[in-house]
């Protein structure tokens, strides 16, 4: 019984390099070829005597690995070099963040020494749901499109227009003409 389950199904396409793919599903006679393909991909090979992600290596895995990895020592050296490189980047970034934080801390200490009211106000956490009475009045007079633009900027949250860096710039480039839109603070 096991032999029939494990018989490899030879595929007939000529211009390929993976000519043999084993699968678990038993071949049934008179089956629609499309359904047969789906069954074969749903039930992959069940040989789990090797440590692979889902049970099947490519047929020339040893040869491919020999070409991919120069040697064990080379692989270890590459890994260590990469970790060291990432460490350099991380340390540089952490040093910059620490410098910036020190500046913030000293500025707040300075402000506390100068004016305690301004200091307390600067330390107040922003409530995203709060809306000042001025804003509420403005909302009543605005058009729907303006109201949407107004809502997009929520106090204490990042604005929606702040773009993520991309690999290539946008076709239009930077938007130089922007209509002034009053937003009360």
């Amino acid at each position, binding site marked *: 019984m096991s032999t029939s389950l494990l018989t490899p199904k030879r595929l007939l396409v000529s211009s390929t390099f993976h000519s043999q793919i084993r699968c678990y599903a038993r071949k049934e006679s008179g089956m629609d070829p499309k359904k047969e393909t789906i069954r074969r991909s749903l039930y992959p090979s069940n040989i789990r005597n090797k440590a692979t992600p889902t049970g099947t290596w490519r047929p020339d895995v040893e040869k491919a690995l020999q070409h991919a990895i120069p040697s064990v020592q080379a692989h270890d050296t590459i890994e260590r070099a990469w970790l060291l490189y990432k460490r350099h980047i991380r340390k540089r970034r952490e040093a910059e963040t620490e410098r910036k934080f020190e500046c913030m801390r000293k500025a707040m200490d300075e402000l506390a020494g100068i004016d305690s009211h301004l200091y307390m106000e600067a330390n107040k956490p922003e409530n995203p749901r709060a809306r000042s009475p001025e804003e509420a009045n403005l909302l009543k007079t605005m058009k729907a499109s303006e109201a949407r633009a107004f809502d997009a900027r929520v106090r204490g949250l990042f604005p929606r227009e702040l773009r993520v*860096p991309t690999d290539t710039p946008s076709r239009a480039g930077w938007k130089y003409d922007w209509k002034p839109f009053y937003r009360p603070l």
Partner: protein
Amino acid sequence: MSSKTLISLCRGNPSAFSAGRRTLATVRETSTTYIPSSQVPISHQTHQKPITKPKLLTSIILNRAPILTPTPTPFERAYYAYQARLRRALSNPFPYDFYFKQGSILETRFTLEERKRERIAFGREFGIADDLDKEKAAANRAAVEQLAEQEGESEEMMARVHPSDEARDYKSLDRKGKRNLYLLLQENEGIWRFPEGNVKKGELLHQAAQRDLLAECGEYMDTWIVSRNPIGHYRPPRKALSTGKPQPEEVAFLYKAHILAGQARPNPETVKDFAWLTKQEVESRVSEYYWHGVKDVLSDH
């Protein structure tokens, strides 16, 4: 206070480049040593109690965030290629018959491209078509070319380098897509500085910052002030007035803001010129004392 500055002077300045809280604590003291002799700050040297509170100013660091991702270094590219080779060697065989219809042109195209990728990854011995005669191979390639023509040209990507980079247009906001750009204004006397302004009575600092930015740089910019907290402070050097009395102390609190759209239209009465500059370019234009007060707040990248 004066003894501390003396000690820091004796210690010299080797620790400016190493990290650590102890060395950062001396930055403020060492910054006072860079004052030109003509402008002597009176505040730090004498032990007088400040009778009046210092005058408050707000200064805005208006930042255009990077538009482009950083370019991978050659080492990164080599490492990613190496990892891709390993993953290709260890991964399952691709179930191409599930994804492509047998005998279709798409399958032919995929096979050709996949063989090419195998050869690039592992070498000339891999990715060889088995039992295919030359006529059939030529026919396959022709079919694939025809398919490419039929599909039409793919969308062309814009170049990462903008024309304003080559033209050195310092007012352009498309310049230096990978870097952080900061707005610098040139006063009528020729000094370069960040946008600055007073704080009115009853106004909070971040509200003053917003108002000052609009007053100095125009309303035609979509800006966002990041938070209520200042990110740094700067004490301009005090000059003795002609009457002999010392000018009141001034402290400028720096606020960070982002520009999201628009362009600066500075007020021509107070400002002669403006520029969007990276951190290194700011250093080259600004006075040494000002630079030491402001440099730690800017991003390196």
